[in-house]
């Protein structure tokens, strides 16, 4: 980093790590704190996958910040040997926006859940996505409140019976992918706690994306909502219901890739038998399509993870990242007006002298 870059970001006195980043291992990213999720919780698999992928990203631990809110998932930063802030309920995207826009030199991750990110913190989440703050947002969706012991969440299905809804929930749930797309997110993906390979590949892509990356991770809460994703993780569903989106390829899934997705004349996405519809009529997935309506249509294929459900990257488009735009304004102001001169500022305007 240049001298002036350090000044602008306020990182005076910091010496960059020597030795490069090629030698990093998983251990460099794992903290010594005892992990305290319930045995069998899907969070373990996600933590292992993230710790596993971090050394490959080429970003040293000291340049990495994990920010969370409140909830089971939000303990995540304590387990990473990076910089971290365990914030307050729902506010992680706001805190992370402060960090990322102050310091474009850092890679900032947000770990949140369906209650934290979509309920109490919904406003911050959508505005972070709209601004395209340079954040990697991991939303662990277990469709339940875990830490408060099992109330329904904004992604719980209608009719959900919980302690706070003994007669069944009458709330309609969010579809997090639709929400993120509606909030102008530039990178939107979905993956699954138990599919480490896919999770890792999506995370890698998200890390490389400049701007907001939003990843919904289906995460099993085996204590309060066990089996919520069984349609995707069960023996049969695993092969019949996972629709893996691959850029540039016709969308096919199921045993022998016998099913596919096509767009109806009125713009909906629908599932068809490839044999009947014909391969040529299937939707060819295009992550980079500027217009989000096809991505949105794909997100509506499944209201919840109860049947065929798309996984992968729905959208990945380039849009200037918020912190970068801000830094650009600072640089051009300094170029045009010269660096700030306090004495000149204080003595500006109509001044007069008294002798």
């Amino acid at each position, binding site marked *: 980093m240049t001298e002036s870059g350090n000044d602008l970001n306020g990182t005076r006195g910091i010496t960059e790590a020597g030795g490069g980043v090629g030698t990093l291992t998983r251990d460099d990213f794992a903290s010594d704190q005892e992990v305290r999720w319930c045995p069998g919780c899907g969070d373990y698999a996600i933590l292992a996958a993230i710790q596993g992928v971090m050394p490959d990203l080429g970003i040293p631990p000291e340049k990495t910040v994990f920010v969370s809110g409140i909830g089971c998932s939000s303990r995540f930063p304590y387990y990473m040997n990076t910089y971290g802030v365990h914030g307050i309920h729902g506010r992680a995207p706001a805190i992370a926006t402060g960090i990322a826009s102050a310091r474009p030199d850092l890679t900032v991750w947000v770990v949140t859940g369906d209650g934290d990110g979509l309920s109490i913190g919904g406003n911050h989440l959508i505005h972070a996505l709209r601004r395209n703050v340079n954040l990697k947002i991991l939303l662990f969706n277990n469709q339940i409140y875990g830490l408060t012991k099992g109330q329904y969440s904004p992604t719980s299905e209608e009719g959900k019976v919980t302690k706070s809804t003994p007669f069944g929930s009458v709330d309609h749930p969010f579809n997090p992918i639709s929400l993120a797309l509606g909030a102008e997110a530039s990178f939107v993906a979905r993956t699954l706690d138990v599919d480490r390979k896919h999770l890792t590949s999506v995370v890698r892509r998200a890390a490389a994306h400049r701007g907001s990356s939003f990843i919904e991770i289906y995460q099993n809460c085996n204590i309060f909502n066990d089996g919520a994703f069984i349609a995707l993780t069960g023996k049969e569903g695993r092969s019949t219901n996972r629709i893996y989106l691959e850029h540039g390829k016709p969308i096919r899934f199921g045993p022998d890739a016998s099913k596919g997705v096509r767009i109806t004349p009125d713009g909906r996405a629908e599932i068809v038998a490839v044999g009947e519809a014909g391969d040529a009529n299937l939707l060819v997935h295009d992550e980079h399509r500027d217009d989000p309506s096809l991505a949105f249509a794909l997100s509506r294929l499944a209201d919840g993870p109860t049947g065929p459900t798309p996984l992968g990257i729905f959208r990945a488009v380039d849009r200037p990242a918020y912190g970068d735009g801000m830094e650009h304004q600072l640089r051009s102001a300094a170029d045009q007006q010269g660096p*700030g001169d306090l004495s000149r500022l204080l003595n500006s305007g109509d001044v007069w002298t008294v002798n």
Partner: protein
Amino acid sequence: MSTQIAPPEGTDRKELDRVVIRFAGDSGDGMQLTGDRFTSVSAVFGNDLATMPDYPAEIRAPAGTLAGVSAFQIHFADFDILTPGDQPSVLVAMNPAALKANLKDLIPGGLLIVNTDAFDNNNLEKVGYTENPLTDGSLAGFQVYEIPMTTMTVESVKDTGVNKKEAERSKNMFALGVISWMYSRPLEPTIAWLEKKFAKKPHLAQANVAALKAGHAFGETAELSAFEIKPATLAPGTYRRITGNQALAYGLIAASVQSKLPLFLASYPITPASDILHELSRHKNFGVRTVQAEDEIAAAGMMVGAAFAGHLAITTTSGPGLDLKSESIGLAVSLELPMVIVDVQRGGPSTGLPTKTEQSDLLHAMYGRHGEAPLPIVAAYSPTSCFWAGIEACRIALKYMTPVILLTDGYLANSAEPWRVPSVDKLPDISIPFASQPNAGEDFWPYLRDETTLARPWAIPGTPGLEHRVGGLEKADGTGNISYDPDNHHLMTQLRAAKIKAIEEEVEPLEFDADEDAKVIILGWGGTYGAIGAAVRRLRNRGKPIARAHLKHLNPFPKNTGDVLRRFDKVVIPEINTGQLSRLIRAEFLIDTIGINKVRALPFRAGDLEQELLKIMES
């Protein structure tokens, strides 16, 4: 630019030592601008002055109604003055609504200048006048100048090519011209200002200049009373006029420069604090980052994030916003990171009186968080003191690694006064070092404290080897690891309090100014400084011995506060609330206090304070 301007020569002018003028009109009449121009010229002319705008909460209430009246008061003098004046001696009323809303404040025998063109039946009816006050004899106690300003303005601009509406809108410049003649203010600075402002619309510049000159010429030919107010004797130096909000913005930039940290401001628009956001947004060449957040909560969260990232992090707000930020401020107390929350107090509760002033957030600043979450409180006391307060709040935040609440108020925010520009070399160096090395053997402990200040080290992301996690969960002293240990929680609660208390060791002692034989001390804080000072002056002129002191640090109090107050028989605390400082003083020092509490959401009047104080002194 530095200018010396002499008053117009050749007129027989009566000399006055001070004048209070209030310009009042419809929101659309441009009274704030008129007042602002008059102020600017008076400042450069060398008078001491203080101003106070008074505008409605509605952006454009229906024309001609009482709700839509906008006013601007200026007090200017040939000596050092302390307030914008209790009551105007001159009232400019551009319509019946402005007259009705403001006449009660005009001093008996005061000068009233009205735009007669606006006194038609329609406008009179709108505000409930059944008779025209200009003709029914009700203004007999005042000296009235009736001027058909609209007609004369339209006539004066007819060659400039403006349309009827534009012509009529220039009448505020006509009014300014009249007043400028009466009080011997030069027109040239305003003409230059108009030409610059309307550089892209020269016909508007021409029209406004024509109206201004016509008003001035009218004053002269109609032989209106003419006065002269000599420049005040101010301490030598370079001066400019500044409002509290602008001074605060400059103070924050100065704090950034003096701490060698980039300034990061996250705020949500709210009256009367928004101008700080506006001002700071203009100074990007100082490396100032400003974010207009999605809400007050986000603004506070971003401030916390920026503080963690190593910036000088600020949020600005007013009462309702402070409510919303409380949760994040509690987190900041727990994280022990430096940042400043500016609360420009306004009338409450709830939406209350957004454009008015109050001192009613002191206890909120002190206690408005769940759990025990102490933090330092600094209060500005005059518009120009906001500059000092900005630097002082940042200094304490950085030195003690703590959020600080800085209280100003709606009056300080919008009022302007001359400011002797400080010399930059005299500003304090408030920089602190970032942590750069492990501090516990090979490890870095984020909560290993400095022995004297109890501040924890500030290790910012990007520093290799000092990676650490902080959060709102209780943490063990030293290591910072999550701790549910009861004794540790007790210790941490005590440490957080002790750290704030320790600041009293270096806060400047409470100064007091006492007459010999004074038995009563007036203790103030915040924006009542000027009014208390003026009241004390009046009492002294009456030969009444009195003492006064003004708190600039509300938490912790200066160490000598109790000792100072105990010297006197009576401690009187005037506040624009129902006694918040009184409660704190009683609780902290077991000293009884006598409150003067008026919650009109307006600054105290020096005359009222004087009367209240006399009663207390004689009782």
